[in-house]
């Protein structure tokens, strides 16, 4: 049975390759967004008040934005988009007629997709670093913990994306759900504005939600603002969210299947 999941991952990768044009257009959009963030923060960080509040300077901010860029591309829209489409057209009926766990199959596919997303995002980053230059590499320990954190982003984001796909069992419309999800993730993960600049009450909210683990946790580990036991604790929280969302998604699925109406007969 494990081979079936490996093949699903391969399938995800193949689908990305089949629709690479669409993916690269999306990537281009993300890249423009990254560049505008770069120019915006370069100006902002000339003001020492921001540097002080953040606890880091422009060269570190570049690394922060790049981490946001990578985790933004990782597990983006493929999974919920394809799920929503199959729910909308009723093709989900065929997924259900197969002796395979729906959630695990989608997760395997997502892993294949994530591999592709990760490789392209890192290549783009390499180019950006070459152009903008001057970025500090992390310490060895920070680098290792950061890698773990980056890996843990995949199951975490999968939980979020998968559940937003499942919402289509109720709404049949996907676009609104996807947009709201992306907006919430962008803000609450710290991708737009580092969480430390939030009003205090909003920081509190952000810290008890899973989204902060997408950008805020890996970025702080990379930059060394959290390290040692504290870093491990935040990694544990990130991992716990991954598991928690997985279980929550399972419960949601149970309800969703009862709601299922196969569209188009």
């Amino acid at each position, binding site marked *: 049975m494990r081979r079936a999941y490996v093949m*699903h991952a391969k*399938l995800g990768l193949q689908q990305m390759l089949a629709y690479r044009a669409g993916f690269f257009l999306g990537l281009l959009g993300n890249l423009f967004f990254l560049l505008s963030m770069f120019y915006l923060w370069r100006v902002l960080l000339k003001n020492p008040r921001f540097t002080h509040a953040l606890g880091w300077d422009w060269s570190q901010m570049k690394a922060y934005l790049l981490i946001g860029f990578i985790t933004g591309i990782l597990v983006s829209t493929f999974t919920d988009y394809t799920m929503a489409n199959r729910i909308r057209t*009723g093709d989900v009926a065929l997924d259900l*007629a197969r002796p*395979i766990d729906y959630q695990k199959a989608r997760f395997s596919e997502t892993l294949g997709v994530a591999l592709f997303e990760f490789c392209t995002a890192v290549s783009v980053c390499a180019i950006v670093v070459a152009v903008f230059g001057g970025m500090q590499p992390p310490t060895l320990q920070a680098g290792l913990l950061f890698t773990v954190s980056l890996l843990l982003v995949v199951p975490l984001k999968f939980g979020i994306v998968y559940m937003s796909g499942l919402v289509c069992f109720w709404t049949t419309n996907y676009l609104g759900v996807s947009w709201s999800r992306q907006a919430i993730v962008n803000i609450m993960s710290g991708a737009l504005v580092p969480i430390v600049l939030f009003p205090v009450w909003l920081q509190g909210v952000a810290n008890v939600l899973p989204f902060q683990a997408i950008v805020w946790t890996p970025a702080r580990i990379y930059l060394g603002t959290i390290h040692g036991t504290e870093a491990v604790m935040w990694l544990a929280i990130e991992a716990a969210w991954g598991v928690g969302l997985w279980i929550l998604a399972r419960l949601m699925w149970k309800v969703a299947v009862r709601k*299922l109406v*196969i569209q188009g*007969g």
Partner: protein
Amino acid sequence: MALIETRGMTKVFRTPLKGPGLAGSVKHLFTRRFTDRVAVANVDLTIEAGEAVAYVGPNGAGKSTTIKMLTGILVPTSGEVHANGVVPHKQRIQNARNIGVVFGQRTQLWWDIPVRESLALLKEIHRIPQDRYEATLQSFNELLELGELLPVIGRRLSLGQRMRADLAAALLHDPKILYLDEPTIGLDISVKDRVRAFIKQLIAERGTTVMLTTHDLGDIEDICRRIVIIDEGRIIYDGDLQAVKDTFARERSMHFQLHHPPADPAAIAARVPGVKLVAGEKPEQLGVHFDRFEVSAADVVAAVMTEADVIDFHIDEPAIEDVIRKVYAGQLDLSAAEA
């Protein structure tokens, strides 16, 4: 216990009740009203292993919904379902191991990869051993001619090719039960014949239990012995296909082409009592309608040949189509056939 058994199986869909136009949609945001539509009502079905059952009815009668409950895709609103010892919607994965499903309007092949890879993926999903997988593909090859399809990417298949590949995909794991939901829809005659031959072979060689929904009566007559007719979610007939034909397709017609218009039609009628003569479009044509259980075709031919100069004739076989059409139109009470 039978292979498939349902008791009181019912599915109710709740649909939002919106007024017309934008105003109706806006109003619906604030006062949500719903209607319950009963798609399948109290269906009791018992299907034994090895049976081939046609499940027919007009559009929207509840055929597909029934199939989707039997396959574990939809959860029944009430009632019981058992298939091969499991409750499909509760043990969906276990149930899925025993079944093959073909939806004529959908494909279970993956759109972006070659057929060969789709089949290989299904092989892993169903955990089919390599040797059995190869043997199965080999045995399918004769009728489905898969060889030419294997390297083709899913989305590039024509409808006929797709259906051949889909049949192979549904049957790779040698399921006990095969559900076919309009498998020949949109296919040309030659592909239809191939699909039917393939299913017949499957029933004969592997003893697969088949449940078929279709609008194509050729499919039914070719494959099934038992017919279940459903309308508005209720079963209105369940029994032998031949019995339906015997009871309701008794009337047979013969059409004669004559050298000259018949001199005395009444004399023909007198020779074979019970027949009804119908004048053809031209005076040299003659139609004879009769009950095939009261008068034999041979008697009719003999009678016409004695009274007139016959060039040619043909017989219209009783078609199940007419019967079902009459049932749909509410003209027939099928309960008589069950007795």
